[in-house]
């Protein structure tokens, strides 16, 4: 497979996953806001500021807006074309990459993505958003899920597909770590304490934004604590959005691409993914908390970036610098 094509598959998939993560985060935040009725400018800011912090978009946001309001943040994260991380930008970039590899992916995949792109650009999207943001984000997530389903069902599961999986799980591991980290940025209102109503509601929201609530409740026996939630989202071995699950699949995709035997490595990307994978396999939630969850997540994000860079180096060695990275 052409290096450029592998690179485009990898990024196409990352952008799709990133668009989905953004839509989920916004959806949950709106719902969370509805749970707390006494809103003044201060609490609103408290609510939306963590979103920008999670997406590392604070600086860019302040170039466009002076104050933080729900509408401004939602507009910025959803529609702003000048924000390269907005949902519309992610969908546009995903489509751009798909166009480059149009002959590699199935027509069904292309049409699904193209329809989504055309819709996201259209006045109909703004109208739907104005009518009900929650419904809007859900239908976006639905479309993106369809894309994943179509991909699995219509594309040959060979090298190109493995690069798509690689991008998807790497991005997803990164998103889950960021969503968990939102909780770190949200301050509990005065008078509230850890384990209190607000705290629990916030943790439920974190779970919901990873579509993890039902799966979590099945095994947690009603114990919604930060510790349980973090354990679930970081270390669970078979929930498809947990960091451990994602890195396991990143490692698997890398080995299927190279043909290198499992538990061995043939390039730096495999070495780093194998290392992170075994670390996650043998980490307990106590280890995470004694390191400090925020620090732990921060470090994990850096290691994910390390894998991503190593992938590009291993398979995009021919590409010019201008083509590398997002």
């Amino acid at each position, binding site marked *: 497979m*052409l*290096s450029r*094509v592998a690179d485009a598959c990898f990024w196409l998939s990352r952008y799709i996953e990133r668009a989905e993560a953004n839509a989920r985060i916004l959806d949950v935040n709106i719902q969370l806001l509805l749970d707390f009725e006494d809103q003044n400018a201060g609490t609103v800011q408290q609510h939306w500021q963590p979103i920008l912090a999670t997406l590392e978009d604070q600086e860019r946001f302040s170039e466009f807006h002076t104050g933080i309001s729900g509408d401004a943040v939602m507009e910025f994260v959803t529609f702003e074309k000048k924000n390269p991380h907005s949902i519309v930008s992610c969908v546009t970039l995903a489509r751009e990459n798909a166009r*480059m590899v149009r*002959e590699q992916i199935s027509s069904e995949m292309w049409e699904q993505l193209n*329809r989504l792109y055309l819709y996201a650009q259209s006045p109909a999207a703004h109208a739907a958003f104005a009518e009900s943001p929650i419904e809007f984000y859900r239908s976006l997530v639905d479309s993106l899920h369809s894309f994943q389903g179509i991909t699995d069902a219509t594309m040959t599961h060979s090298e190109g597909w493995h690069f798509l999986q690689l991008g998807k799980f790497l991005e997803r591991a990164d998103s889950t770590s960021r969503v968990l980290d939102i909780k770190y940025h949200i301050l509990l209102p005065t008078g509230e304490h850890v384990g209190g109503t607000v705290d629990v509601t916030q943790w439920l929201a974190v779970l919901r934004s990873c579509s993890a609530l039902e799966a979590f409740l099945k095994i947690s026996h009603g114990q919604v604590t930060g510790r349980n939630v973090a354990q679930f989202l970081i270390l669970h071995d078979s929930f498809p959005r947990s960091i451990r699950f994602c890195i396991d699949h990143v490692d698997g995709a890398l080995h299927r691409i190279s043909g290198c035997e499992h538990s061995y490595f043939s390039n730096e990307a495999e070495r780093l993914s194998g290392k992170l994978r075994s670390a996650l396999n043998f980490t307990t939630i106590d280890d995470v908390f004694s390191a400090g969850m925020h620090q732990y997540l921060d470090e994990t994000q850096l290691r994910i970036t390390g894998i991503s860079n190593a992938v590009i180096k291993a398979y995009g060695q*021919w590409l*010019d610098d201008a083509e590398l990275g997002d």
Partner: protein
Amino acid sequence: MQGLFESYDRGGFFDEMFSDDGRVRPHYALLRERFCQMDPSEFEHKRALAEKSYLNQGVTFTVYSGDEGTERIMPFDLIPRIIPATEWEIIERGLVQRLTALNLFLHDIYHEQRIIEEGIIPAEIVLSAKHYRPELVGFNVPRNIYIHVCGTDLIRGADGQYYVLEDNGRCPSGVSYLLENRQAMKRVFPKLFSRYPVRPVDRYPQELLAALRHVAPNGNPDPTVVVLTPGIYNSAYFEHSFLARAMGIEIVVGRDLVVEKSRVFMKTTKGLKQVDVIYRRIDDDFLDPTVFRKDSALGVPGIVDAYRAGNVNLANAIGTGVADDKVTYYYVPAMIKFYLGEDPILPNVETFLSAVETDRKYILDHLPELVVKAANESGGYGMMIGPHASQEEIAKFRDAIIADPRGYIAQPVIQLSRSPCCNDGKLEGRHIDLRPYILSGEKTVIIPGGLTRVAMRKGSLVVNSSQGGGSKDTWVLDEEVAPC
């Protein structure tokens, strides 16, 4: 006439569907019947359906104005153009004859130049052609095929006679629309197809791949073939990726290729892989910055060297532009006679060369009545239609012709035949042409029909997509039996 055709006006032109006495031509009778059963809103609904599916599939071309490119679909008209079997048989023979002669001509002028020596074509006409490549003189292309893919534009005049308007022997585009139009028609009017003996077109990609494999260097029986595109911002990118997909081969951009030891390789995740045949959709000028335009970022440095070393083949060959130069066009009938000893089956449009003094005088005296074309432009650019031109435009072309007589030709205005097209729920006649695609490989193959292009604006004679032209499906019928 009834229903949709109630107020249809042939406007005094040759009409594809109706003869001069207003009666429907026999091969269109069934079609008219079907369309008459449809009310305008149903028709409009079907049209919207087809356009929507083009947009969703990304069957688009990019139009640039300023820095911003917009993706547009080519307007699609639902009423097919129908060509009876006997008519097509003549067209097919005429096109094969023409392309055979053009390939012989290219071999000749890059080798012995007999046609010049024997005084059929003046040396300066060939040697001064913008796309003549002295670098290729004496070079043998695999199997002596220069133009592997040719798009020849045909028009019908007021008498219904088919004429060749021009040959496109460099990178003719549009074949993907031909194939997509057929798909769209099948979706929209499935029943019509079961009643009309329409010859299928969908084997084009396989025929193209066979033609490309046929010309692999050194007769390699299992060559690696790729499509070379300028990239996703090129207006025809959809077509490039469409063809790569339909042939099941890689599509590459210049950066994906590298030349080492006069061999071309593509950069893959598993290392370098040698490439044998390149279906390139990049013009000569941009192909190799070490030989042609130095500023080309689209090309592959060293590719011409690899080509000359016989390690890679390019389709179409380098230097074919001299054959589709509009001045060379004038000499094609003479070429056919010279190389094949035959009379041309498809005539040229009467043409005046401003390079010839007597013709030039005629052209300058009759500018408001003539169509003037720059010898080396395509896509409807560099063209003036006298009767539709302003005083300033005519003056501009007059100066240009005097300054560069070799650079222009002129032709009488041909009133292209018309076909009913749907505009705002009404059927009106619009001028059309026909671009069949001719492949030369082991044998010369033409996919039945071609792309029928439509000048969508009322009265306009310009059918190019870059100038707002549309298209319609083209049906070549299999037999003379009336459709059932």
